[in-house]
């Protein structure tokens, strides 16, 4: 009974496939894999928009949207209808082809990234031998689409926003990839299914997740920060900040194309969080041994919701980073930290998982963090505030 609940979707897909004629079974198998993924994540996107707006509202001591349904829960529906019926204004001298395909490529790249993520036991769309590499390859395609979006409008501010966004994305791509190499070394495989399976089992009270090791914890934090920067999300959302550059690289987009960009950005964020869960938080494994009977996909979505709430919290709390601060943070703090993390992950293999390992690897990571962080204090102390008229 527990296994049936756990493998519900796998069994459903197998039964439906058995009912179809043999000739269209491969094609139908593909659609049966990707249909639920798109449906579930589109619903998650709708839920996240309302959760975010109300959450941000509460963090800023105001209500969020509360007109549309009871407590505003039908707000995504209103947003969707608005995006669909808004007039699609395209400026006169834009490059039509590039302007059209940029949101398409962002959506396609964001959706492709979901094919290598294991949502539950035996529930993965594409079990590649090099799954994690596929994920990063798809992320690299997003940058090209952002460039196309900024370039096609022939608008200086859009172009400037696009260049800043791409510079930010390529700077944070290196700490993103380096922070996962420790996990790949320990799990010994690039396949996401293999990495999740390497995190099964419990030692005492704690599960064998990678986040419960010193290098894993540092890697997890680095990965989350780099993923937030890759998705151009606050506190790294200078390229799309409303008060800075109108709307950055999607200034000239309106209506449904803007909604596509928005959707693509959130989908990219969910995919990055899902990869963080797969690599560091044990994928679909339960955190405590006696809750093993809960289906694996439910654990995955609980963890995903937790990370989404964390990212909304960070968005409401921290101020936006300026462009040069962002670059300095990436190149002078995160990159050396990721390299030290890699060294610590390598040492962990020799010292084992006991107190000696925690001592050596943990102190290595902590010393690097403190030393690199002290260089981030950015020189001059803040001067005492001078009031012109209130003395």
């Amino acid at each position, binding site marked *: 009974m527990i296994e049936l609940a756990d493998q519900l979707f796998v069994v459903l897909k197998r039964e439906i496939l058995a009912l179809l004629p043999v000739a269209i079974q491969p094609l139908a198998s593909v659609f049966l894999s990707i249909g639920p993924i798109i449906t579930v994540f589109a619903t998650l996107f709708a839920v996240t928009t309302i959760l975010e707006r109300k959450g941000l509202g509460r963090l800023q001591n105001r209500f969020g949207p509360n007109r549309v349904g009871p407590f505003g829960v039908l707000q995504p529906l209103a947003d969707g209808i608005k995006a669909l019926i808004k007039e699609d204004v395209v400026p006169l001298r834009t490059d039509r082809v*590039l302007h059209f395909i940029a949101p398409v490529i962002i959506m396609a790249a964001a959706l492709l990234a979901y094919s290598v993520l294991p949502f539950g036991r035996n529930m993965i769309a594409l079990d*590649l*031998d*090099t799954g994690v*590499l*596929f994920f*990063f*390859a*798809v*992320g*690299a*395609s997003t*940058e*090209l689409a952002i*460039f*196309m979006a900024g*370039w096609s409008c022939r608008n200086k501010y859009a*172009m400037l926003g696009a*260049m800043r966004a*791409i510079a930010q994305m*390529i700077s944070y*791509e290196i700490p993103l990839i380096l922070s996962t190499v420790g996990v790949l070394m320990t799990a*010994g*495989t*690039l396949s996401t299914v293999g990495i999740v399976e390497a995190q099964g089992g419990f030692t005492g009270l704690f599960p064998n997740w990678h986040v419960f090791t010193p290098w894993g914890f540092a890697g997890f934090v680095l990965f989350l920060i780099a993923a937030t920067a890759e998705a151009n999300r606050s506190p790294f959302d200078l390229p799309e900040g409303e008060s800075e550059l109108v709307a950055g690289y999607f200034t000239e987009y309106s209506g449904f194309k803007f909604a596509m960009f928005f959707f693509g950005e959130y989908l990219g964020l969910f995919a990055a969080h899902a990869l963080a869960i797969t690599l560091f938080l044990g994928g679909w494994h339960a955190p405590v041994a006696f809750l093993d009977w809960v289906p694996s996909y439910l654990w995955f979505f609980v963890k995903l919701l937790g990370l989404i709430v964390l990212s909304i919290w960070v968005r409401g709390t921290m101020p936006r980073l300026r462009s*040069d601060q962002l670059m300095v943070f990436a190149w002078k703090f995160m990159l050396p930290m990721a390299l030290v993390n890699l060294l610590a992950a390598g040492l962990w293999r020799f010292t084992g998982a006991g107190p000696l390992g925690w001592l050596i690897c943990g102190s290595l990571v902590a010393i690097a963090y403190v030393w690199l962080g002290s260089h981030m204090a950015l020189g001059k102390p803040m001067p005492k505030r001078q009031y012109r008229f209130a003395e």
Partner: protein
Amino acid sequence: MNFDLAILSLIIAAGSIGAILFRDLVHSVLSLAVTFFGLAGVYLRLGAEFIAFSQVIVYVGAVAILALFVVILTRKGERAAESRFSADRLLPLAVCSMLFVGLAAAAWSSSIKSRPELASATASMRQLGRELMSSYVVPLEVLGLLLTACMIGATILALNDDRESNPDEDKPHSSH
């Protein structure tokens, strides 16, 4: 020739011809990126997954983006009057066409063109990692040194060194 290989070759051919022929440089770099995607598809079809994804990460994600940045930074406004081709275009065009015809004819008339695929040509990541760390560790380290040297060199070349024009600034500006 299968359907998917036909589509991929069409994408690659269109991308590479477009890269030569587009008047606007940004369009030609973008069609180069399309060519890289098509090539990654061909590598996947040939079973070299690691190379396919590395191609996308390195070529599309780094080289094409870098070329786009340089194209934008070295633009001279709207200059539609100049020709995009060099003054002497007949001899290079003839040489390139003869090269293509020669290579295609050599491939067509060879005896190896209809060999079957090798069943033992599989590359798992584990084998690649092991080979890289045992037989090919010297090229790997040399590559690391080379990439470091190229990174430092490129940064210095592109550095905006305004020390001659602003003698009272004692801190060099950072690069683009």
